[in-house]
Each structure stands twice: as structure tokens, then as C-alpha cells.
């Protein structure tokens, strides 16, 4: 071997042996039991209802951007629950382990989690929440909404889209399996250097982290390419840049940020892996390595990444607020400019994440000013939203509540961001829980926007609205939790409490830790109501059914022009764009429901199993590398190469839905808007509808020209 890591190695299993399965740890054991029971239940149910074929045909192999988007969102929400449970565990540990007299359980000196287990939990929490919860949810929303808003049939590259998703899913799988096989990194979501080097992290944890980040990063990079290409090339006729919905502007800006920053992460983590696998010295303290280089590279990605998630969130707010104010967005041009500006400036501020690393006053001052410049376009956005409300007719539906909550959080998070951007202040709160409070404050802006978006666009995708009462309860408990938890955390920051402590040496911090615990209990209630909201809504879907194309009656952009749930072909005929708020324009001109007099054939790509298989190979590659089972890694890699080659030979003619068929389907909408045959039961709206109505591609379908 090129490097000497401790522990045995065998050809077949690499570093893996039975002891790596942590059955002796009661927490993991019970988690494992619970997960297994859940998995068996799900598999049993799918088998019982005979839905394997349906799942495979309609979801797993689908190239439909809406389905892929829904799968992204499901993945993200599921992972958000996992990350949330990590959060509860950390809060509870910190509350239990205060002061030298606090008792220890299950092998811990204090509290119930030994240091390295605690370290794994916070590292997994951060990695999951940022890369595998919030990012997939946002990518999913962009996936669903961007093509609809620009009047496209699908993304520019449907196949690439599915591939991005399955790579993300493979990476998520790696993080999840690290729970039960081996251990996860303890070096934080940022991969603290040189803690991630073999000398200080000899186990497989860091490898799990790095390969998950690598594979997920490739997925997100590809997704960015796809969204950029879609927005640039696929806009409906008449949609000039200045008529493009603002959400698309933010999606574009975010994707440019993503595309240009993710490769830096890939490079940084690849170098780290070279250190760990090939014995190089890029980031080791000695032998010519430079650990500060890693920190720089990481944050050159890391800071843009936080704007990668916040920009679409800004876009969501810019869609929700006008709808529920019954007014166009105030200052459209400014808003578009601000979105681009935020993206632009976000590249030039990364050093504010390590002002304390000893750079001279010139460097620190430069990055301080650059960081504060971000505040300008952000401030502009807030004021523009405020003036969107001005002289409007403001309703407080659930999406609007989430949007307004996000707005308030943006104000407080902006304030603390501006504090952190001043080196003299940063010296006192860097790496303390104050920073943790700042970015949870900000990421909650994104979270609130995501929940707002889910409530807002749910009827578009599934054909029924989410329950209002439980939705509001979820919102209020979530907000209360945010205030109580992160309020306490900010205060603890002024007490000087460092982040990532598994044992709290000072009892004076206990009262506020109790405050944090109270906050997380409120979050627990909120997530109960969120689940209940989904449950109640699906149960009462007939009641919450949306028959009009516009679920809210006052929506503005193009996605509300087509039916709810959206048929698989999005728009029966490609719309021509007349205005910035196309749907509002048509509504106001009485053109809301005119039918076209001519339907054209629609060409769509065929389903393909290659992306799922590619995801599986990527998982094998990652898992093989983590455990140094080189045969498995090699097979995974070969599999990927073979699949890519196979795809390039398969020229995928796609299939054509004849215009006459479209006319039929559209007519069934018109006949009785509430009773579209196949779409009567709108669970999985797109789903049921498409299953029944989409023609199966036949072998002799020929090869018609793509539209």
C-alpha cells in the first residue's frame, strides 16, 4: 500500500470486517432496527400493491423534469428529517453534559455521546443539511418550475437531469450507510484541515465524507449546467430576458455560481483524497504541505455554495409575495440585477470565513469590505419586497406566511452577517456558536422559502392544495422554534461558547442551553404538524382539489397557465409570451382559457434505466473506495464508463404524441374541469395522469425529427 493506515486489509473486503458494524452501540442498533422495519414495511407495501413496475416505469427510469424534481424534493425532505434528528441529538448531548459533575451514560464521560460519536453527528448534520437536504430540495424546485416558467417541454438535457439526480441519490446513500457500516467523518462539514489527514482521522469516516461530497458535487455541477442551458436556450417565443420570471433569474444566477464553484470543491477534496490514498502531502502540516490551501479552496466553494442555496430562495420569495399581494413585483429590473450582483460578489468574499488565520490588516480589510458589499443587493431586495406589499391587497395564505417569516429572518441574519464581516468583531465570535446561529438563521431563510415553495407549487404538481390549518400550525411552531433556539444560541455567542463542544465546561452556559433545547422541542412539534399536513392533505385531497389552472387565483407567471396537475407534456401548444407576468396578463385580458385551434405533435424522450444504473455504479465506486475494496471500486468505475459509452450508441429516438391525442386529452380537461378521467385521483397528480394517458413507445416508432 502507498500509505500506512492502521488496521487490517483483505482483498475481498478491503478494510471492512464484522467489527465495523457498530452493533454494540445501542443508539445505532435501535436506529438500525427501526430503519430495517421501515424498509421492510415499504418494500412489503410496494410488493403487496404490485407497484414495482409502476415505480420503475414511471419514476425511477423517468426523464420527466417534474418527476425528477419531485424525487429530488422527496430525497431532500427525507434527509432533512435525518439531519433534524442529528440536531436533536446534539442539543440533548450538550444539555446533558454541562459541568464536571454531569453524569455519563453508555460509555460517555458526560452525557450519552462519546466525543467522536458527537463529532460524527455534527459533521453528518452539516453535510446532510447543506448538500443533501436543502440543495436537493432547491434543485428539485428549480427542476419543476424553471421549464414551466419559461414555457419549455422539459429541461435542455433530460437524460443529464436524471443522471444528476441519481448521482445525488448515490451520494446520499453513502452518507446514510455510514451510519451502519463503519463511521462518518468527525471533522465537520467543512473538512477541517489537517484533521482530515490520515494521521488524525485514521478511520474510514473522512473517506465516506469525501466520496459523498465528490459524487454529490458532480451531480450538482451537472444540474447547474442543465439549468443554465435550459434558461438560455429553451425560453418560449416572445420571452425576452426582461420578460423572464424573477425565479428564473435567480435560478440562472445560482446555477452560474454552482457551475463555477463546485469544481473547486471537487479539486480540493480530490487533493485531500490523494493525501489519504496516495500518500501525497498537499494539505499535511509537514513535508511541504499547506493546510491553509485547503481552507482557501474549500471556502472558495463554500461561500458561493451558501449563495447557491439562498439565491433560489430569494426567487421563491419574489414569486410568492407578488401573488399574495395581488401586485407585480416592485422593481423587477433591480431585482434581476441584484440577483446577478449577489452571485457576482459571492466569489470575492471567501476569506471572511477565516479572518483569524493571521492574514495582515490589508487582506482582512479587503475581504471585510467585499463581504459587506453583498449586503447592498440583499438590502435592495428586502426594500423591493416591502414596496411590493405597498398598495397591494395582502392575503396571509400559508405560502405567504413562510415567505414573510423568511423576510424577517433575512433581516436578523443580515445584521449578524454584517457583524461577522467586520474582522474586529469576527475575532471574538469566529468559530463560536454565534456563527452557528448566524448561518442557521440564514439557512432557515432558505428553509422557510422551501416550505413556502412546497405549499405554493404543490397544487401545480399534484392538483390539490395542502391543508391550511395544519400548515399554519407547522409555520408558527417552526417560527417559534427558530426564535427560541437561535435566539439562545446568539446569546451564548456573547458568552464566548465555541461550536462543536460535546462537553460543556461552564455551568453558566446551562440556562441558554435549556433555551436551545426548548427551541428544538418546538421544531419537533413543527415537524409533527408538517407530516400531519401532508397526511391530512392527501386524505382530504378531494376537498382541496384544484380544478382551475391557477391554484391561488392571483398568480402571475407562466406555470399557472397550464393545467393543475401539469400534464406530462407541460403545455399543449407552446405559449407565446406577451408580457413579463404572462399568466396575469392573459387573465387580465380575458385570455385565461382560450383553446388553441390547432394541436401539434409533441416529441418526448423515452424512459431509460441508464441513469439509475449509473447511480448504482457511482455508489459502488464510492463504497469500494471508502473501504479500499479496489475490485469493487474498479467495477463501479468500469460500469460507469460502459454505461456512458452505451448511452452514446443509443440514439434514443424518443416518442411522439400525435396532435390528435393531445386534443383528446385537452378536451377531457374542458368537458368537466373537476373530473378528468385518468386524473380523477390526483395523488401523485402527474403520476396517475401520465400513466393512464401516455402512449408507450413502440419498437417501430421510427425516428421523427425533434421539435
Amino acid at each position: 500500500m502507498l500509505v500506512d493506515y492502521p488496521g487490517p486489509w483483505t482483498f475481498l473486503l478491503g478494510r471492512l470486517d464484522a467489527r465495523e458494524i457498530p452493533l454494540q452501540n445501542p443508539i445505532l442498533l435501535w436506529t438500525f432496527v427501526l430503519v430495517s422495519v421501515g424498509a421492510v414495511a415499504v418494500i412489503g407495501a410496494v410488493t403487496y400493491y404490485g407497484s414495482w413496475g409502476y415505480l420503475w416505469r414511471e419514476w425511477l427510469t423517468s426523464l420527466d423534469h417534474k418527476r425528477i424534481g419531485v424525487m429530488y424534493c422527496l430525497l431532500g425532505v427525507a434527509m432533512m428529517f435525518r439531519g433534524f434528528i442529528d440536531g436533536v441529538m446534539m442539543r440533548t448531548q450538550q444539555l446533558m453534559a454541562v459541568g464536571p459533575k454531569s453524569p455519563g451514560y453508555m460509555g460517555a464521560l458526560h452525557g450519552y455521546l462519546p466525543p467522536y460519536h458527537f463529532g460524527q453527528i455534527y459533521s453528518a448534520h452539516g453535510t446532510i443539511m447543506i448538500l443533501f437536504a436543502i440543495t436537493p430540495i432547491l434543485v428539485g424546485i428549480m427542476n419543476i418550475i424553471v421549464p414551466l416558467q419559461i414555457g419549455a417541454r422539459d429541461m435542455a438535457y433530460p437524460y443529464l437531469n436524471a443522471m444528476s439526480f441519481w448521482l445525488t441519490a448515490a451520494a446520499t446513500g453513502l452518507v446514510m450507510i455510514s451510519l451502519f457500516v463503519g463511521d462518518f467523518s468527525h471533522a465537520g462539514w467543512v473538512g477541517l484541515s489537517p484533521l482530515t489527514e490520515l494521521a488524525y482521522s485514521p478511520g474510514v469516516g473522512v473517506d465516506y465524507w469525501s466520496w459523498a461530497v465528490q459524487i454529490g458535487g458532480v451531480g450538482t455541477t451537472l444540474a447547474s449546467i442543465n439549468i443554465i442551458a435550459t434558461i438560455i436556450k429553451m425560453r418560449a417565443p416572445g420571452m425576452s430576458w426582461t420578460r423572464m420570471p424573477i425565479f428564473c433569474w435567480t435560478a440562472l444566477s445560482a446555477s452560474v455560481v454552482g457551475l463555477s464553484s463546485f469544481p473547486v470543491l471537487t479539486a480540493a477534496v480530490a487533493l485531500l483524497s490523494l493525501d489519504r490514498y496516495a500518500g501525497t502531502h498537499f494539505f499535511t502540516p509537514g513535508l511541504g504541505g499547506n493546510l491553509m490551501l485547503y481552507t482557501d479552496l474549500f471556502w472558495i466553494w463554500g461561500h458561493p455554495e451558501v449563495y447557491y442555496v439562498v439565491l433560489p430562495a430569494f426567487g421563491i420569495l419574489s414569486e410568492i409575495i407578488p401573488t399574495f399581494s395581488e401586485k407585480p413585483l416592485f422593481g423587477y429590473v433591480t431585482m434581476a440585477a441584484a440577483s446577478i450582483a449577489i452571485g457576482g460578489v459571492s466569489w470575492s468574499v471567501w476569506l471572511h470565513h477565516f479572518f483569524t488565520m493571521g492574514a495582515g490588516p490589508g487582506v482582512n480589510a479587503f475581504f471585510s469590505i467585499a463581504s459587506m458589499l453583498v449586503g447592498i443587493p440583499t438590502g435592495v431586495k428586502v426594500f423591493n419586497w416591502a414596496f411590493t406589499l405597498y398598495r397591494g391587497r395582502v392575503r396571509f395564505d400559508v405560502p405567504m406566511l413562510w415567505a414573510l417569516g423568511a423576510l424577517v429572518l433575512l433581516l436578523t441574519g443580515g445584521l449578524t452577517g454584517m457583524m461577522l464581516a467586520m474582522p474586529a468583531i469576527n475575532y471574538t465570535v469566529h468559530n463560536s456558536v454565534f456563527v452557528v446561529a448566524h448561518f442557521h438563521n440564514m439557512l432557515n431563510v432558505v428553509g422557510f422559502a422551501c416550505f413556502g415553495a412546497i405549499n405554493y407549487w404543490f397544487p401545480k404538481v399534484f392538483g390539490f392544495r395542502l391543508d391550511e390549518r395544519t400548515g399554519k400550525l407547522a409555520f408558527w411552531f417552526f417560527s417559534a422554534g427558530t426564535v427560541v433556539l437561535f435566539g439562545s444560541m446568539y446569546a451564548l455567542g456573547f458568552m464566548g461558547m465555541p461550536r462543536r463542544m460535546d462537553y460543556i465546561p461552564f455551568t453558566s452556559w446551562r440556562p441558554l442551553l435549556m433555551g436551545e433545547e426548548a427551541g428544538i422541542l418546538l421544531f419537533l412539534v413543527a415537524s409533527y404538524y408538517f407530516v400531519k399536513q401532508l397526511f391530512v392533505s392527501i386524505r382530504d385531497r378531494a376537498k382541496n382539489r384544484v380544478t382551475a389552472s391557477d391554484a391561488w387565483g392571483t398568480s402571475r407567471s407562466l406555470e399557472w397557465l397550464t393545467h393543475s396537475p401539469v400534464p406530462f407534456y407541460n403545455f399543449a401548444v407552446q405559449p407565446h409570451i406577451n408580457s413579463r407576468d404572462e399568466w396575469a396578463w392573459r387573465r387580465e385580458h380575458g385570455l385565461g382559457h382560450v383553446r388553441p385551434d390547432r394541436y401539434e405533435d409533441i416529441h418526448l424522450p423515452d424512459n431509460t434505466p441508464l441513469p439509475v444504473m449509473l447511480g448504482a455504479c457511482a455508489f459502488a465506486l464510492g463504497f469500494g473506495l471508502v473501504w479500499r475494496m479496489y475490485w469493487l471500486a474498479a467495477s463501479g468505475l468500469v460500469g460507469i464508463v460502459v454505461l456512458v459509452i452505451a448511452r452514446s450508441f443509443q440514439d434514443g429516438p424518443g416518442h411522439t404524441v400525435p396532435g390528435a391525442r393531445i386534443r383528446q386529452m385537452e378536451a377531457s380537461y374542458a368537458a368537466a374541469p373537476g373530473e378528468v378521467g385518468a386524473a380523477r385521483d390526483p395523488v401523485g397528480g402527474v403520476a396517475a395522469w401520465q400513466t393512464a394517458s401516455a402512449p408507450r413507445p413502440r419498437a417501430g416508432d421510427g425516428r421523427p425529427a425533434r421539435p
Partner: protein
Amino acid sequence: MALRKGRALGRLGAALLLFLTGCAQKAYWLVHPKGAIARTEWHTTVLDVAVMGGVVLVAGGLVAVFLWRYRVGNRSRTYDPTFTASLVIEILVWGVPLLVVGYLSYFSVKSVLATNPYDPLAMRGALARQGRNGEAFARRADPAMTSALAPAMRAPRPLRVEVITTDWQWVFIYPKEGIATVDELVVPVRTPVKFDLTSATVVNDFFIPELVGEIDVMPGMRTKQAMIAGRTGVYHGYSDDYSGGGFSWMGFSTRVVDHARFEKWVRRVRAARDQLSFARFSRIARPTINLAQRVSHFSEVQKGLFDHVIGRVMAGRVYRTPLAMTENMTKPMNVRMIK
């Protein structure tokens, strides 16, 4: 009934607030700085919060007022969906943040220089003030300026301390005095202290909240920090950057004492039996968790230890974390622990 309930709730809230803030007043270490640098940092915080708080209040206030006034139930409102752009407002919404950021930038540069760890102007300022006060005092006591009070006017010579972090302890070397300690930092009051810092293993962050802000402590590198403590007392210092399993126990106490006490302490350490040679240091640097922050004293330090540690790390010396330690999730930690 409702009233009583409300009052009870109010009382509960007040009690809670008192509990959270009142009894822990002294615990807000950043709010009560005890040294010139920390004080400058706190002043910067207050100013920044005041300025940004103003902006946030204006923006939040606008939102709140508009929400209330233009809510759908309010019949007296005007509804005007054509109000979507206004040059004046545009200029204001870009202009005001620009001005605010401009002002804060100026202030940021100023405070960066004041607290620059390598040469903090705030320390010079504090010393100058101290000098002036001392001088005024001396003049009053002795107008002719002939007495022995004069030396008090001179800025005291800075104390140098070399700091080395290991997994997971602090080694403080006093090169001039030729002594060293583990997990105990003692400095004279109102005297500039200059730190050189490095790490034998991973990155840590040197932080004494009441006295001075953070500076990273990095292996194979030297960073610097400077501080001046204004008041005697015992202050908590610790690492602020996660460094592995013993991180939470990686504290040290900082005692700020008057000059006489400091001299006495140095003499006491000089009497210690232990000595800090290169070899002795490598034993300390093995992964160790000092649970009770047990202090050790060394009466003598092998010359050039600090540079030696940097050199060794650069040459590839590592103090490995045992695999059994990082993998274990059911036993506390199988490394050396000092109880």
C-alpha cells in the same frame, strides 16, 4: 379568567427572562471586556449593531406597516397594482445601503488596524493612555519630576510568551524567564503581552474572551497575538477550533496578577522539579486529555523549543490519533487521560 392567565403567562415569561439573562449577567464575557483589545472589539460590535440595527428596524418597520395597512381586510386602503417602479425609491434603496456599507467599511478598516494581532494599535493606544495618566499622576505628586516615580511613566516592557498546542493541551513557554507551564497562563496586569503561537498537531484557536479575540494556532507555522489586560483576575481561555476528541477539555486558566505577584510566581515555577526538554515535550504532545486542567510547571526549558517544534512538524513529525479512539463509539476514549 383570560386576564389571570395572561398575567400568569407574563410572570412566567419575566421569570424566564430573568433566569436566562439576569443570573448569568457576568457570563456574557464579550460584553464585559477586561482588556484593551477585547474592549475595542466590543465597541466595534456595539457600533455595528447600532448602525445595522437602524437599517433593519427601518426595513422591518416598512414591511410591518405595509402588511398592516394593505391587508386584505382593510377597506380604507388604496389598491394600486400599477405601482411597480419608482426612480426615487430605486435611488433610495440602492443609495441608503451603499452609504451604510460605506460608513461601516471605513469603520471596519479602522478597527482592523486597531485589533491587528501582529501590531494592535489599540494596545498602543491603551499604553499611551496609561502613560499619560501615569505622567499626570507623577506630575501631581512630584512637579519637578525628580523622584523614582518616573519609571512608571515608561511603557512597561512587553512580556513574551510562546504558545504551543498539542492534542489536547496548552504549553506556555516564557523564553525570557526560561520557564514553562502546561494549561496555565499567568501574566502581569497592564503590561503588553506578546504571543507567538504554533501547534504540534492540528489547528486550534487561541481565545480568552474577556481579554483578546481569536487567532489560529497552526502546525508548522507561527502566528502572533498581543494583548494587554486591564484588570487582575482569573479568566478562562480555551481552544475555539475543533481539534479532535479532547477538544472540549482544552481549556487553560489565565491569571492576571500585579507585578510583585508575577515575580513571585516566576520564582515558584523556577523551583519546580520538572524541566521541559525536547524529549519531554514529545511525551506531553502525545494525545492526552487533561480532564481537570491539571497544571504542570517546568523550571527550565531547552533553548529553541518553539522553533524546534515548528521545524519538526515541517519535517513531517506527527502525533497520530489512535484508530481505536476515533472508531470507538461505546467507550469514552482510550488515550491518556489526566484526571
